[in-house]
């Protein structure tokens, strides 16, 4: 789940970690009541500062994704189907923005990207 954490990216590490968990919650990969790894374990596994993991968990708690229970760990909350949908929508939108920004750098238009997308998913003949 955390394989794509990239310390060289300009996106802060805590944000990348929180984002992976947001995606997993929205996709149903993490279900309400599931425990997140302990701060110590996740920091060790990702080789990041434990404070970074705490910061990610706090951000998720503030957004209502998880609950940090003193002494027993951090658990996924039920965010409801509507919010899950909204999250998936947001994640898809962010992905598209990234793609469009990359395309612009390569001198490709939105039309070029759209056409390639349609070809890839098979709604347009090649």
């Amino acid at each position, binding site marked *: 789940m955390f394989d794509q954490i990239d*310390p*060289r*990216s*300009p996106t*802060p*590490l805590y944000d990348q970690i929180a984002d992976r968990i947001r995606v997993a919650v929205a996709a149903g990969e993490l279900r309400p009541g599931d425990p997140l790894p302990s*701060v*110590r374990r996740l*920091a*060790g596994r*990702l*080789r*990041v*500062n*434990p*404070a*970074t993991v705490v910061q990610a968990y706090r951000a998720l708690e503030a957004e209502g994704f998880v609950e940090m229970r003193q002494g027993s760990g951090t658990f996924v909350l039920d965010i409801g189907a509507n919010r899950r949908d909204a999250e998936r929508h947001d994640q898809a939108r962010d992905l598209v923005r990234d793609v469009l920004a990359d395309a612009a*750098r390569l001198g490709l238009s939105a039309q070029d990207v759209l056409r390639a997308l349609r070809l890839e998913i098979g709604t347009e003949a090649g």
Partner: protein
Amino acid sequence: MTNAIEMRGVHHRLGTSFEIRDLTVNVPSGSIYGFLGPNGSGKTTTIRLMLGLLRRGKGSIQVLGRPIPADAARVLARTGYVPERPHLYDSFSIGEAIKYHGAFFRTWDARRAEELRVRFRLDAAARIGRLSKGETGKLMMLLALAQSPDLLVLDEPTDGLDPVVRRDVLTAVLDYVSQRDATVFISSHLVHELERICDWVGVMDDGRLVAEMPMQTFKSGIKRLRVADAPSLVSDTPFVLLAREPGDGLSGGEVWVVRGWQDPMKQYFEGVGARLREVVDLDLEEGFVELLRTFRTPDA
């Protein structure tokens, strides 16, 4: 926020050619502070000063709230120090070295020492003089961590170690700080290693501290911009212009290296009739290289 280490206006002359000048360093308590700088920039000298192993000239130094060098002994009792060059007796076995070292510290945690020895796959009977570089590095880290320090000072702790050993050693440090509050001061010229774990950075060059800030500020603030139609003279930029050079020739325009960048500053370019084509993020290593390069060129 309190500081675990505070150095103010410290001077120190080493021989005739090198000196530490007006050095001010603040290491927040509980941070993992990465101390970057090229070889010979004064990192080890700074560390020796802060631990009272060298006498400062002017200035003041406080570590863990106590003055250095006056209270150095008490500070060292709470500080795990991994020096650049190990100070171990070759004739000891690993087991003997652990016992010997432990006898100096009231806070010694024999259980942690044993746990780390097993985790690092160190043979208690092996002679120090016959250890590989990697084994010696692991033993040094074990000794520093088993001391249950409030402050860890690591001087190039992974220099010359292979990637597997580096990972083991750093993971042990992270494991330690996730179990208890401690401050870590880690000097390295291996920039990528620090990028993952540090939340503060200080950059040394030629005996001076040229930058000190939260890691994220450092990383997000330095950018490379591709600019077209830039006027030949620029002034009043909202960011610090570190360098300005011709582009790659294909696309024309110029490349600017800036510090203190924020996205709304894009508007500046319209105001001067230029076009901002691209903002390129730099990772810690590139940011570090750009910073030093421009710092060494007074005209930039």
